[in-house]
């Protein structure tokens, strides 16, 4: 492949190590999805077609705890919004058309964008390779590990007996933790938890989670 031969070794190494470590999280998703009541096929389709970790965890989390399809999809889609902004950032770099743009869009996630941006000092070609290698690498490992996790959870049976029902909130915590870099982020996080729990007795499952997006909207959109 031309892209690889022109690529610095360090870019290939970065892409691969991100692909394998992040891809391995797929095992947690596969298990969580089956524990939430999704079939192995549905879990694997989510990883193949949605291919965005936080959104996938969100839709199985919301529907698994009794929320409707619309609540699940809305929460997942709000979380997927950032991929659109990544696409905006990546498209001038990648200059894709047609089928290639469809492929590029599908693998536009946190990791492919992150690695691409981290290669800036090595030049445009390295950035492009970083994007494609990481995107494709995460895709392959994420899907393989989803399958393994889904089959594993199916063999286990009762999710609570294996702690799978706690693995899901722990996974969400692991996803949000690195984002809480300032005091105000931490306050927002605690505020969102309080709001969601406060609304839980009064709203149908799923809506208390979506409601916290308004908290983000109110703070993000106010005059600086």
């Amino acid at each position, binding site marked *: 492949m031309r892209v690889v031969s022109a690529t610095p070794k360090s870019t290939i190494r970065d892409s691969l190590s991100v692909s394998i470590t992040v891809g391995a999280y797929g095992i947690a998703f596969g298990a969580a999805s089956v524990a939430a009541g999704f079939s192995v096929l549905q879990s694997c389709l989510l990883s193949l077609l949605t291919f965005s970790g936080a959104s996938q965890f969100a839709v199985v989390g919301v529907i698994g705890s009794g929320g409707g399809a619309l609540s699940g999809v809305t929460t997942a889609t709000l979380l997927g919004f950032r991929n659109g902004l990544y696409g*905006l950032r990546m498209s001038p770099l990648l200059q894709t058309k047609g089928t290639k743009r469809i492929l590029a869009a599908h693998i536009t996630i946190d990791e492919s964008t992150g690695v691409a941006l981290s290669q800036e000092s090595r030049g445009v070609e390295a950035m492009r390779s970083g994007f494609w290698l990481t995107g494709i690498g995460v895709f392959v490992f994420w899907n393989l590990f989803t399958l393994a996790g889904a089959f594993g959870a199916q063999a286990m049976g009762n999710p*609570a*007996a294996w702690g799978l029902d706690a693995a899901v909130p722990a996974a969400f915590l692991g996803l*949000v933790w690195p984002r809480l870099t300032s005091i105000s982020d931490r306050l927002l996080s605690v505020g969102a938890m309080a709001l969601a729990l406060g609304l839980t007795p009064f709203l149908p499952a799923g809506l208390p989670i979506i409601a916290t997006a308004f908290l983000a909207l109110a703070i993000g959109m106010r005059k600086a």
Partner: protein
Amino acid sequence: MSTMWWGVLGTSVAAFALKYLGHSIPQRYLSHPKIQKTNLLIPITLLSALVAVQTFADKSKLVIDHRTAGLAVAVVALKFRASFPVVVILAALASALTYHFF
């Protein structure tokens, strides 16, 4: 079609649409600082809400059960900079032990 299938297909279609849209529209759209800021905040509130609800809600009731133990262990593990899989496994382990022995 079941709720799960609608969830799978709806999420997949919307996720791809957002990604593709990002690659297709001129960059001047959505590059407003307020949108960028909100985009950073939305995952924080949604993921935090998911942590809380998945730990403390049982349908529409709030409960403290074995999952709380799992979450507490996850917090400690993250404080000690454990990697994502380690955090998840330790939380599951703590929750399962609490479920069986208390």
